[in-house]
């Protein structure tokens, strides 16, 4: 896969974090989990509700809420109304929205201070 157009000093979220999407009704949740707990504060600063809204501008959710779990270096995003009525009536190809975690994980954020390209999530 080709890297998205990068601007200097920016990296995709997935180089610092991993995550998974889950659905319930018309709601989607996406976890964002730091590979290295030392990056959690950096992720907290940059992977915001606003970044999440921008990631989903092609399919705007009616609400985005972020929950923080500092003890496990994780956060949980809850997106409202992005599944067109939910898994059983959604006309989209991926009715569950299971693939959507990578929409957020591909978003660009500033690299943390001292970041080399050999970070944990790097290919």
């Amino acid at each position, binding site marked *: 896969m080709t890297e998205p157009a990068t601007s200097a000093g920016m990296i995709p979220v997935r180089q610092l974090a991993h995550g998974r999407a*889950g659905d319930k009704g018309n709601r989607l949740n996406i976890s964002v*989990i730091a590979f290295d707990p030392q990056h959690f504060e950096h992720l907290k600063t940059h992977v915001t509700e606003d970044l999440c809204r921008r990631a989903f501008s092609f399919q705007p959710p009616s609400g985005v809420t972020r*929950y923080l779990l500092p003890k496990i270096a994780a956060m949980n995003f809850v997106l409202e109304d992005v599944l067109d*009525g939910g898994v059983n*009536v959604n*006309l*989209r190809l991926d009715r569950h929205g299971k693939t959507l975690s990578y929409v957020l994980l591909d978003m660009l954020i500033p690299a943390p201070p001292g970041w080399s390209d050999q970070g944990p999530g*790097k290919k």
Partner: protein
Amino acid sequence: MGDVHIAAGAGFSNDRRELGEIAAQSLTLFEGHRYLIFECLAERTLALAQGEEGRRRQAERAVGYLQACINTCILNNIKIISNFGGSAPKQVAEAIAGFLKEHNLRRKVGYVLGDELPVKETEHAGRAISCNAYIGAKGIVEALDAGAEIVVTGRVADPSLAVGPVAFEHELKWIDWNRLAQATLAGHLIECATQVCGGYFADTGAKQVPGLARLGAPVASIARGHDRLTISKPLGGGSLTTATVTEQLLYEIHDPARYLTPDVVMDVSGVSMQQSGKDEVTLTGCVGHAKPDWLKTLTCVDAGWIGEGEISYMGDTGLDRAQMARAVLKQRLENIAPSAEPHFDIVGAMYDEAESNIRRPRDVRLRMAVASRDRDQVQALLDEVEALYLNGPAGGGGIRLNISPRTATVAGAARHNEAVPRGYLLEDTP
């Protein structure tokens, strides 16, 4: 002594059959009370399982899961709990008893009722097919108490499949909120089976998973009176790490402090975890709060039909021609069925298209999906996709058309006394 070990042998209705046997074999490595659960009931499974044919299919599937692991379970005194009873737990239990008799196997079979509610029409257009409450673990405890070694349930909340055996063996009171939450967390982590031990996790870089082709099954272990919960994967491929466990911990969770189940409100906001061994993670800090006043219900509604049609375009101008085909289809559909609201995807460029073609895929597939109460109308719209062969842009091919029933689910609420879980032992159990 008195530890409860619960392995998961399926995480969805059609999971790998070999997983049940791997899970059973994994349990033989533990001392204590051993349980094997199969989680097989997705939101709309109950709607699809109505009628004689649906019930027969359910029973066949349940027997299929048992065939793969029953000998290991009997030899090692492993009890089995599953919601593979679907819309007819008693009938599925009877089918299982029949299978056991036929093979001269002795196992007491029980079942749980109480989730089925009278079907009421909803505000959603369409005929209501079924209505079920997500019930808790009490019925499982009653069935185990009656001596059942295989417990067949319907719409029991997924994590309650694990709460049942822990509540039974550790004699939990139904107000032991922290203990109930701990057992709920055990169930939540293993209910999707391999999803906690390397399944649905693999990627490049730091997310490589060894042995993905033969993923092992997870085992949750709870010691009586301890705050600790251990999840491990003793056999098979995959890996179980704090990373895989954290992904599953937050899977389908909204507010981590308030995960609502019929048994308890689980709060994982303060959970800590550590890698306590190879393929073994220990969690602490899960707490519980009083269960919600209401049970969640799900009404399945017949919402007509969904039609899907696809056609491929290749080459440097493939995306342009797919867009051309989409424009043509929109015009033709406007004439046939102006009220239809078809959804279009260009597979291979779905998200790039929204960002004005950063990349140019050389291999795309135009997909149209449409829903209607009128099957003939859906067919007529799909005919237009097929007509793109001769009547659309150059070089289109690989058309596939499909019509399937569309079932909507409508969430609601019921009081605990409207859907009381009850566990029974099958009369004439082998």
